[in-house]
């Protein structure tokens, strides 16, 4: 294997969607970068995730990040030259209680004020979007639907960014773990890896659920916690389901992939934080009961696989982006709390703008880790 570069402008720790998207955005701007990934690209949460891309959030920050990311996904095929199986089949978000209806009304008002096209559906209109859904059986009383939400195949998005970044001069080192961060006079100035040292002007922590461990290498504390999240896929069926269907009430979501399988996850409210990748019977049986209830026609369909990944969760379910005050030049790009695949493209643009001193398209302060010193208002539209 090649020896690693001894000096670059920016050293990025982590080769998930965040790390490679940033590598691309910086390379495009003529900045020399190196990405260090301890396993293969996408082996962390990105390659395990549901691939859902939605803009229907409850906070302005998440809505704006997601709306800008959708614009990037829409031109990705052209810009990066890969078909990442991007499909805008919409997201159907179900409300089951009056309380949820009130919250969703608020969300829709905010979303529309930011220019998002979302539709409000009464109970009897839900089947217009998904005829197979047993609206009565699941107790849905209303829903919101955004037709420009959608999904993509995450591993391909990672390779698309990585290939283009390499073409533009980025150094991407797989199977290369970062063991330490060099801090000199209060400034991050490189990384120590299994294969040697690389000096840099900036060090970016894009290590997903492992970010608190990486931050610790520079003496920085992050509030993120890793939570296992399980997911499964069925055998392929002919296409019938356009949108991602999601219920915060039942903590469940599912969609159909371009290959035809139904992919979906359920969040166990009893899950404890930790680096747990085990597949559980509790998950697959609960998920099967939910699918049977939501779409009874799925009963005879066979489940092919289940697996688990980690959510990298912050106290307000918003990412941590940008500098920290303890160590200059040590930038955070983590804490996506279960919806990072969809917003990483825009987060990469923002960090690239910050590093090159360009004007920022969206201010970074609301994403600063310092916000946790005060009381924070959290994102409520999440499958926890």
């Amino acid at each position: 294997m090649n020896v690693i570069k001894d000096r670059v402008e920016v050293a990025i720790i982590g080769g998930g969607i965040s790390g490679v998207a940033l590598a691309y955005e910086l390379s495009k701007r003529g900045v020399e970068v190196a990405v260090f990934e301890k396993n293969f690209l996408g082996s962390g949460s990105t390659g395990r995730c549901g691939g859902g891309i939605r803009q229907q959030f409850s906070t302005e920050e998440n809505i704006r990040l997601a709306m800008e990311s959708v614009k990037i996904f829409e031109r990705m095929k052209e810009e990066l030259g890969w078909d990442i199986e991007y499909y805008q089949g919409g997201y159907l978000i179900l409300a089951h209680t009056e309380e949820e209806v009130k919250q969703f009304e608020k969300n829709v008002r905010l979303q529309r004020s930011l220019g998002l096209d979302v539709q409000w559906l009464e109970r009897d209109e839900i089947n217009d979007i998904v005829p197979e859904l047993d609206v009565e059986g699941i107790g849905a009383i209303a829903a919101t639907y955004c037709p420009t939400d959608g999904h993509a195949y995450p591993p391909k998005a990672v390779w698309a960014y990585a290939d283009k970044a390499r073409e533009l001069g980025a150094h991407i080192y797989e199977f290369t773990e970062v063991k330490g961060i060099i801090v000199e006079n209060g400034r991050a100035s490189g990384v120590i890896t299994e294969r040697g040292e690389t000096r840099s002007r900036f060090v970016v922590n894009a290590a997903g659920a492992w970010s608190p461990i990486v931050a610790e290498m520079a003496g920085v504390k992050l509030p993120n916690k890793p939570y296992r999240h399980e997911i499964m896929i069925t055998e392929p069926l002919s296409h019938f389901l356009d949108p991602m269907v999601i219920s915060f009430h039942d903590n469940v979501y599912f969609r159909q992939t371009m290959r035809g399988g139904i992919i979906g996850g359920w969040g166990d409210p009893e899950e404890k934080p930790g680096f747990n990748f085990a597949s559980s019977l509790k998950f697959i049986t609960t998920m099967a009961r939910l699918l049977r209830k939501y779409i009874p026609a799925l009963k005879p369909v066979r489940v092919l696989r289940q697996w688990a990944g980690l959510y990298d969760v912050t106290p307000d379910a918003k990412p941590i982006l940008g500098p920290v005050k303890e160590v200059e030049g040590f930038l955070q790009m983590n804490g996506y709390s279960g919806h990072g695949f969809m917003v990483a493209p825009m987060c990469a643009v923002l960090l690239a703008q910050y590093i090159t001193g360009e004007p920022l398209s969206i201010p970074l302060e609301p994403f600063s880790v310092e916000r946790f010193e005060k009381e924070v208002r959290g994102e409520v539209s999440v499958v926890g």
Partner: protein
Amino acid sequence: MSDDQEEEIVCRCEDVSLKELLEAIDRGYTTLDQLKRYLRIGMGHCQGRTCLRLAAGVLARKLGKRVDEIEWPTVRPPILPVEISKLAEVDERDKR
């Protein structure tokens, strides 16, 4: 290898040819985990029972390694495809 051999199918569930497998390895997808995600090889009904073994052999030859040096992807349950209605009726006393 002759053209005929290259048209041979290595993964029947996902219809992947030997040629596609060799091209993927040349593009730098040099672990079974990566090949699985890139070609969907081993993601079909058979859960990789035949194709992953074949792919491991091809990969080993290409990389000049022994087959037992090729790392196997994590085995994902259920080992055989199971119907949603059957899983829904499983009583999970094993609360894990």
